[in-house]
């Protein structure tokens, strides 16, 4: 059982266009039986934050190739990628490196 936690989710490099142009989102994740990891967070973002064209952000259960993920200012490849267990007050940044965002 994971307690509700508060995160700062940011989008950049044009990815913010899919989120009404808002770059910073202070979000609170609800309680859920299994602990929150990036995989769950992506699902949650798709359902709650994403405003249009989900295929331009998410592919399968991960982000679209070309979108970088930073967890607390570090490469997510160092943090276990999708399996990283989120902590309260974590900062997750998504930066699109694709042309035109």
């Amino acid at each position, binding site marked *: 059982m994971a307690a509700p936690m508060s995160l700062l989710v940011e989008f950049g490099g044009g990815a913010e*266009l899919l989120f009404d142009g808002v770059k910073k989102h202070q979000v609170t994740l609800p309680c859920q039986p299994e602990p929150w990891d990036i995989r769950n967070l992506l699902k949650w973002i798709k359902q709650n934050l994403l405003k249009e064209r989900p295929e331009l952000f998410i592919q399968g259960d991960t982000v679209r190739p*070309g979108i*970088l993920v*930073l967890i607390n200012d570090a*490469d997510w490849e*160092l943090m276990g990628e999708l399996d990283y267990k989120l902590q309260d007050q974590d900062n997750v940044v998504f930066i699109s*490196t*694709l042309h035109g*965002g």
Partner: protein
Amino acid sequence: MCQAQEEYGGCDQPRRRPRVSCAQKCMKCKEASPVLVIRVGDAFCKACFREYFVHKFRAMLGKNRAIYPGEKVLLALSGGPASSSMLRQVQEGLSRETAKKLRFMPGIIYVDEGAVCGQSLAEREKTLLQLETVLQASGFPYHLAHLEEVFDLPSSILQRVPHHPAGPKDNYKEAVEGFIRQQRQEEGGGPSVPERQIQEKLAKVSVRDAPGMEGLAAPEARLLAAVRTEQLIRLFGSVKTLTAKEELLQTLRNHLILHTARAHGYSKVMMGDSCTRLAVKLLTNLSLGRGASLAMDTGFSDDRHGDVVVVRPMREYSAKEIAFYNHLFGVPTVFTPALDTKALEKASIHRVIERFLYGLQAEFPSTVSTVYRTGEKLSVTPGDAGPAAEPERCLLCLCTLDTNVEDGSALQAILVSERLSQQKLPAAAPAGRGCCLGAEEQRGCCMNTTAPGADARADFLPLLCYGCRLTIKDTTCLESLPLYVRSEAERRKRRAAMKLEIQEFLLEDEAVTPGES
């Protein structure tokens, strides 16, 4: 044993991404904990990454010896990550202590393409305002240009200006030493002007290249701007595919940057193409039939215009490195929507290739660098005609024409089949006259193959390289092309006609007096 296997990768999946963990230390200083992974499994900490990044830029410029001290260099800034980070590198380089200092004089150009990318006037103003903040903060002189200005370009833009640099490559060292000596002398005797002051002076002369484009009092100017915007939108509206639009935009943008460089005496233009972007560009251009000019389009330096050389100093950085650098070191970027923003994944060839490469890269992290390294091996060879004869160049991209090839080439085959399929129409027409009905009325009867539009097109196409031909074929309304393109096309046509007329005499003349010029 396990370790060894991990390091060299299993046999089954030799180049799959190896797992790296946070417990690992920075591969350079071996102390700090890493913040990002570049290349395959190389983890860097923040400080080492910064050093690596800054060094790479200087190494790129040093290795190629393309930029001479004191030279005026125009930085093409789009507001995007790569060019913004390039600006930061130049700033870093210029502020260093003397021994390691970069010694050229930078200026910046920003081209506002909002009209083509579907931005409203208010949005464009907002973007410009954001960009001006960045430009002013840089302290360099800057030029704001609007894509609309292409309608006022002179046709000399489409002519190559032969240029012989002060000296060949071996003189680079001398040039640098000479420059330093000169600087020392200036500092020793006479009133020395601190660099700061020069920079400030430079910043003051910043010109806004578009008087009247932006809410200046004169109503005529505003009207003209609106007309130009209208023209531009009509031109891009007449282009059928997103692929051709991208190509046309790139061509026009390059012309505008070149014009600004020439008008203000810049002899180099720096473009911020990253390694990732160049890999995409390489494959895209191959698919677009621009194979012959790949070396020019993607190489470090590109001298197709003669007097103004385009250099690409960011070409060793991957998009990921750049994005991380900008994020970690607070480099300001301004996002502007491009033509393909929010477009479908298969909307243009550029888009398809980008997706293909990024998709592969996600699984095989050396994809982009492999493509890029392959492209790096390409080089421009002087044409068969030898250096004496100036080869014919494409009207739009100024690359050497790749269309005067011998019989039996793929291009010839395409042209023949094109001609055959066009001939078929009048032959088939007498049998059934139904072909003249329907939507064809505007263009006249299909038997009448010499419609005015088609005629102009037939005259226009031979002036272009194969890649640009494809772009122009997708442009339905040639009349909406900027005047400088049309008048230069007209001029070349006339010259060719004249050459044909006097050819007989020329040959005789040459035979009699070969030495005379």
